[in-house]
């Protein structure tokens, strides 16, 4: 087998050194009756590269790749162009096949990269400190809720109705076990988010308010007003961002007073990948909250010769030291996705990020205007960045399926995201990025004109 270097002669010589006569002498502690006598049922024998590749390619071909369609899906995962050099760099064996940097003297590559990544994320989010990543946006969102509980010592959590429903579901799932009290709401189909309604739900027992920015309908909530209301009751504001490219165009959540900013970093460098691995981003505005943060942190220090170097630090928050009193049980995070994000962000730089955001917004405006001209279609949003909600006047899930058969991936229906809410069934979320062409927009518009007529 091509991945196993030992020869039969090696194995015999090694068994002799050990003082064993056969390999099963080393498995004596496995009870005889539990030992497998034959191969795993149904699993074929080892196969060549060529054979396995063929099998996997066959499965791959059964999927419609985003690049092969007019593509308008978003809702927490966005199709962006990733420069070729990003994939080249993350495939360097020194990054790809390294472990968590527990031995800093021979892991400065990963550590310096993480320090740069943390700095980039902190600036993007308008925060003081970002960690070295979480699994994804939804788990980062829950970790932020848990952290707010530690900071405020309160258990009442207010979720905005316009938070991604899967994120809300993750929070609700975890809260069942930690006995946090979750006050959720349904999204109201208004042109602007209902800030007053949200603010009225904050009281002096509230640990945190969780607000998505831009929200699940693509609208842009006024975080500053919510932050002020939350702070006046001693609660924290958690801002959730699922489209980091937006922050090249709109104010950062930290700037607007959010205390903890979390989000999904997938848009920058990572790719769609059918939902994972993705990249959880986690930052705090006030450095005094650092010791309540979950996850790994990389910090600057010096070596014995006085040279600058980097180490994982403040580890006493973490499970391998604090065990049952840790801030989180997280261990492995999304290191390689953080590298992809950091490389892509370096290629963009501030100038490129702003240009990318502007191009996304320009095309989204173009699409919104064109699609609003389709009879029966209207745009819900007053404001948006690169994603907005359309009312189709028909069951949007059916429309999506019909269009998929024509090779158009029209968007994410709210019926798929909120299956229990019939009042949302005729709504479609449409995302537009720099990868969308004006021709794609025209394809979608004319497809609507046909199926909605």
């Amino acid at each position: 087998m091509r991945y196993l270097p030992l020869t039969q002669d090696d194995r015999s010589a090694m068994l002799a050194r050990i003082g064993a006569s056969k390999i099963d002498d080393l498995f004596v502690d496995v009870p005889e009756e539990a030992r497998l006598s034959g191969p795993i049922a149904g699993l074929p024998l080892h196969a060549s590269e060529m054979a396995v590749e063929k099998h996997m390619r066959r499965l791959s071909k059964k999927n419609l790749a985003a690049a092969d369609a007019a593509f308008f899906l978003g809702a927490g995962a966005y199709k962006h162009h990733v420069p070729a050099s990003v994939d080249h760099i993350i495939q360097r064996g020194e990054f790809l096949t390294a472990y968590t940097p527990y031995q800093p003297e021979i892991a400065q590559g990963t550590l310096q990269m993480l320090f740069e990544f943390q700095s980039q994320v902190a600036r993007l989010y308008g925060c003081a400190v970002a960690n070295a990543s979480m699994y994804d946006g939804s788990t980062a969102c829950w970790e932020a809720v848990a952290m707010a509980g530690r900071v405020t010592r309160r258990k009442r959590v207010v979720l905005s109705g316009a938070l991604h429903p899967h994120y809300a579901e993750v929070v609700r799932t975890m809260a069942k076990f930690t006995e946090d009290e979750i006050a959720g709401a349904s999204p109201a189909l208004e042109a602007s988010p209902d800030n007053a309604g949200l603010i009225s739900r904050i009281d002096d027992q509230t640990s945190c308010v969780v607000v998505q920015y831009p929200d699940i309908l693509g609208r842009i909530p006024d975080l500053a007003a919510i932050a002020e209301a939350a702070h006046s009751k001693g609660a924290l504001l958690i801002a959730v961002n699922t489209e980091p490219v937006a922050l090249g165009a709109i104010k950062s959540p930290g700037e607007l007073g959010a205390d903890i900013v979390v989000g999904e970093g997938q848009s920058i460098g990572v790719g769609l990948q059918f939902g994972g691995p993705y990249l959880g981003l986690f930052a705090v505005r006030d450095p005094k909250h650092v010791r309540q943060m979950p996850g790994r942190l990389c910090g600057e220090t010096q070596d014995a010769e006085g040279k600058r170097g980097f180490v994982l630090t403040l580890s006493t928050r973490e499970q391998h030291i604090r065990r049952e009193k840790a801030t989180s049980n997280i261990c492995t995070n999304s290191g390689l996705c953080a590298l992809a994000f950091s490389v892509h962000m370096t290629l963009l730089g501030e100038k490129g990020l702003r240009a990318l955001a502007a191009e996304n917004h320009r095309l989204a405006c173009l699409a919104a205007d064109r699609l609003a001209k389709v009879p029966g279609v209207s745009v819900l949003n007053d404001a948006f960045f690169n994603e907005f909600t359309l009312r189709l006047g028909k069951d949007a899930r059916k429309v999506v399926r019909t269009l998929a058969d024509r090779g158009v991936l029209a968007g994410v229906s709210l019926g798929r995201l909120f299956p229990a809410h019939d009042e949302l069934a005729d709504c479609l979320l449409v995302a537009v990025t720099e990868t969308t062409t004006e021709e794609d927009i025209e394809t979608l518009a004319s497809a609507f004109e046909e199926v909605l007529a």
Partner: protein
Amino acid sequence: MARYFTDEHEWIDVDGDTATVGITDYAQGQLGDIVFVELPSAGTSLSKGGDAAVVESVKAASDVYAPIDGEVTEGNGALEDDPALVNTASEGDGWFFKMTIGDASQLDGLMDEAGYKAFCDSL
């Protein structure tokens, strides 16, 4: 003023109705370089043997227990800026917090300086 010691390596100085608590020189030696101390805020009520503070070195976090019942009146703010005080002056400027004395009889169960020294020697 009298100083008492616990078998968890805390010291407590009693001065009238209030007491000052810290960790012993022996304890700081065992912990190594102290990088952070998490102190209870004023008003926290403590019970003997319960968690009162956390002291951290690079690779370890250790709980500091309340030697007696009482209420915290003040944490040592100097430790926030300079946790190394616990290493350099554990039984002086590196004190952790001041507290009221809820039950003076609990002091009777603690060790005096000689008793604590003998205790450490036996470890």
